[in-house]
């Protein structure tokens, strides 16, 4: 084999010749040499052959759609198909006229439904995130402190529901939460009603009362909290676990040796050290919860306002595409952009 060929790389002919002398079969044809020749002929360097397909795909199916949404948000709603007026009109004389309608955005600020929906989405997402943290933290801690074998099995148990259908997991809670559903029936069978009666007798002087069974839990905000916590719990547990498993047990022992009670150790050692996990997990629950549509639709009541649901109704029920687009733009500006900035800032901190 000549030095030149050796330097140029393992040319297919050289490899084949060597294999033939060793009595081995010809190798199967591999596509890269051919691909490379073709692309070079077309004037596309190897790098651009890698970059262009995803770049073009995202330009067409991610960026342009957003521009279309912005365009439609500024157009006027009409009855028809498609139900909006074109932004650009060309008069018979050939003059191009562009009309930007701010009416959709003005409408958003005038009708307090939209502002209420934003605030309510933020509130529901925040409460659910805190609940998920309260449930997920002890679980993550428990898993991180288990033996090697048990840990793998417990982690699998946490991830397993994630692989099954999200919709069906939400559905499972309908049977659980509804009036005379599984929870009500179980509580009744356990005789909890007597307990409630006794408590109510004791609380009566204070003017408090626990409502009697069956409890209405489905079609309330409470149902939505349960649904969100249930659906996104794995996203809370996994980052917390990755963080807690790295926690040095010696620090906990040192704290205990210095006389701190377990709770004190938790507050001043474990919790501060696990803050990155807490933040990561909370973001992973909070972000998808804000735009959630399915959970408030199935478990929430008619008064459970969430912005994803408002957009859906505006689009499918009212067939008002411009208003739906304006809601989407406002949602992007108010919710998604700050989150992306926050994420970028967080990445910058992590990289440093």
């Amino acid at each position: 084999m000549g030095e030149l060929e050796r330097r140029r790389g393992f040319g297919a002919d050289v490899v084949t010749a060597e294999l033939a002398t060793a009595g081995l079969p010809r190798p199967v044809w591999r596509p890269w040499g051919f691909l490379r020749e073709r692309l070079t002929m077309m004037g596309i360097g190897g790098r651009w052959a890698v970059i262009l397909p995803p770049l073009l795909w995202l330009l067409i199916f991610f960026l342009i759609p957003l521009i279309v949404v912005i365009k439609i948000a500024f157009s006027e709603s009409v009855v028809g198909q498609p139900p909006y007026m074109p932004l650009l009109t060309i008069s018979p004389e050939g003059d191009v006229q562009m009309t930007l309608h701010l009416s959709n955005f003005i409408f958003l600020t005038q009708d307090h439904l939209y502002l209420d929906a934003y605030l309510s989405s933020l509130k529901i997402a925040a409460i659910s995130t805190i609940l998920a943290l309260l449930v997920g933290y002890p679980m993550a801690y428990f898993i991180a402190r288990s033996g090697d074998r048990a840990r793998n099995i417990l982690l699998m148990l946490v991830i397993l529901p994630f692989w099954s259908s999200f919709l069906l997991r939400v559905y499972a809670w309908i049977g659980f939460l509804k009036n005379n559903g599984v929870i009500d029936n179980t509580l009744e069978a356990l005789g909890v009603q007597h307990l409630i009666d006794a408590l109510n007798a004791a609380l009566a002087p204070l003017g408090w009362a626990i409502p009697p069974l069956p409890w209405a839990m489905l079609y309330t905000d409470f149902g939505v909290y349960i649904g969100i916590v249930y659906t996104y719990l794995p996203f809370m547990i996994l980052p917390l676990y990755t963080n807690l498993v790295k926690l040095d047990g010696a620090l906990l022992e040192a704290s205990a040796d210095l006389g701190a009670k377990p709770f004190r150790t938790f507050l001043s050692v474990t919790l501060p050290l696990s803050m990155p996990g807490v933040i990561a997990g909370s973001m992973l629950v909070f972000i998808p919860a804000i735009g959630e549509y399915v959970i408030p639709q199935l478990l929430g009541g008619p008064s459970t306002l969430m912005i994803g649901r408002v957009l859906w109704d505006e689009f499918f029920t009212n067939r008002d595409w411009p208003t739906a687009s304006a809601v989407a733009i406002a949602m992007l500006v108010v919710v998604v952009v700050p989150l992306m900035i926050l994420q970028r800032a967080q990445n910058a901190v992590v990289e440093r």
Partner: protein
Amino acid sequence: MKRGLFIPIVATLGFIFLYAPIISLVVFSFNESKLVTVWGGFSTKWYGELFANPQVLDAGLLSLRVAAASATIALILGTLCAVALSRFRRFRGKTLLGGMVSAPLVMPDVITGLSLLLLFVAMEEVFGWPAGRGELTIIIAHSTFCMAYVTVVVASRLSDLDQSLEEAAQDLGAIPARVFFDITLPIIAPALISSWLLSFTLSLDDLVIASFVSGPGSSTLPMVIFSKIKLGVSPDVNALASLIIGVVALGVIIATIIQLRRPTKKAPA
């Protein structure tokens, strides 16, 4: 260190919280009675009813086709994107590409669905393509958002990768494409498989985006289930849920056993 009982008790309650609804779902799928919360005797009639329902079967097949196609497209595009972002030093549009590929991760489904539908409508008006909406438009939409997840998984694997192997191959004269196919690809294969499976699951699971971009006559399985659920609980949905959960549980348990059996090999860093 002294171990309290508080953590184990709360953790156990947490696992009960995770599994009780699923278990009750499976149990009540074998319920004779139409009422989903009152036990009326053992029966498998809801499973029979499920398989006799052509609407559910068609939707299931459509969902599987869409999931397989979009996972494959997402895998190819996402891997290219991950290679471009983590291996190429600087190129025009790198920031744009990075931003565009990570945005779907934080983008609410309703916005993704709405924007893609509006794009398809506008494209049909201007180019006459895609004519109507259905399987193709769902595949395009799912590929786009699954691609973001593939990129994240593959890019993180690429950044963990021992680059000296790739450099060695390059020093021996292999062209970049050959380095990728002979060295990088076999090493990142597990990440590729898991991101394909993740994309497949995400596509199979999506209701919101599919509802926006599908046309009349092409309803995916989640869309059919959703319209059934809106009318209230019904035992054949329980049967369907139990089947899905059974298949998934079996797959995950087998994968875990294989992983636990295999001695953990760690490449020397």
